[in-house]
């Protein structure tokens, strides 16, 4: 079963929401541990361009800092984006579209049975936490990444894999 609207989401109990959230957080951490085949903020296709509609400059970017520099614009949306991302965070693999409609639940809505629509998947700082907060506003679901910790590059390049970033 898929939850793709607010009405269905409201039928999910707080306990079930918490269980789903925990399971997806586990997936996010698993994805973040996938080794980066190259480096930087990029997708998996040859040219490495990002596929998200909200990101007009598709890159790819050699590091998190390069990404932040490219989006350092006089715009509320991008200003918000810049503030959210730790410049020292390293790009990790992410689904990049954790909409509830992309998560297949068991009929009793207790467990996640699968994850679909990986077309936007990419290596992104903090697994795309900031973009998720902006794009997914269903109550409780916007806080999916809360409390999660991601790798941080202490050398300051934003493309290594040392330390952690909250």
């Amino acid at each position, binding site marked *: 079963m*898929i939850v793709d609207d607010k009405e269905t989401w409201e039928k999910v109990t707080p306990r079930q929401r918490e269980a789903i959230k925990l399971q997806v957080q586990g997936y996010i951490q698993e994805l973040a541990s996938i080794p980066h085949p190259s480096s930087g903020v990029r997708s998996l296709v040859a040219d490495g361009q990002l596929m998200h509609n909200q990101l007009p400059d598709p890159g790819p970017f050699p590091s998190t800092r390069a990404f932040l520099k490219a989006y350092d614009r006089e715009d509320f949306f991008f200003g918000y984006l810049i503030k959210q991302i730790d410049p020292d965070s390293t790009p990790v693999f992410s689904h990049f579209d954790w909409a509830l409609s992309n998560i297949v639940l068991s009929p009793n809505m207790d467990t996640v049975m699968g*994850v679909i629509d*990986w077309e936007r998947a990419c290596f992104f700082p903090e697994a795309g936490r900031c973009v998720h907060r902006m794009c997914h506003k269903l109550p409780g679901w916007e806080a999916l990444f809360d409390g999660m910790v991601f790798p941080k590059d202490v050398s300051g390049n934003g493309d290594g894999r040392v330390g952690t970033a909250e």
Partner: protein
Amino acid sequence: MSLNATARFSRLFWRCGNPPIIRQQAYPPLLERFLVYVWYLVIPFRLFDVPLPHFLQFLYCLQFPALAHFLAENMDEQWLSLCLDEGLVHPTLDRRVYVLEKYIIKKQLSHGERGHNGYVPIYSAVKKRDENEILALKLVQEHTSIPVPKVVHSGNGYVYVRSEKITSIRAITNIKLSFLDSLFSSDSRG
């Protein structure tokens, strides 16, 4: 035995189909031999249910690129022939999505073809996103235990076919939901 008798004896064997050497010389079985090789290759792969892309890769390794190409094209046509309006479930935006009994096919819109309410997709972007998804699914399957659909065939840049094995189709009003649900039945995990 006289020479005449030997010749008669030989002809008798010939009629019985016994002397293989003579038959091979008379009918060089190049095509036959080729078909037999193909048959020997295909049967084990079909028996053990080896996915087609792996089989095609195997054929390429064995220096049968023409055969692999032929089979791939043939498979594309077969998959496309399954894309009937009855199975079309989404309002079409970037692609048409067809739900079959055991598979889901994502088919890109061809150039000039419009989506729902005249929506014009960015064709090159959709193609790239499909490529990205296939690579992502492979990466996720290799490195994690996250249940994701399996790509069973990707053909000629416009057809993408996904996971299989339906154990139960639950009575959910929205057909899209019920089939997606079944993609992740316990049989198809891992």
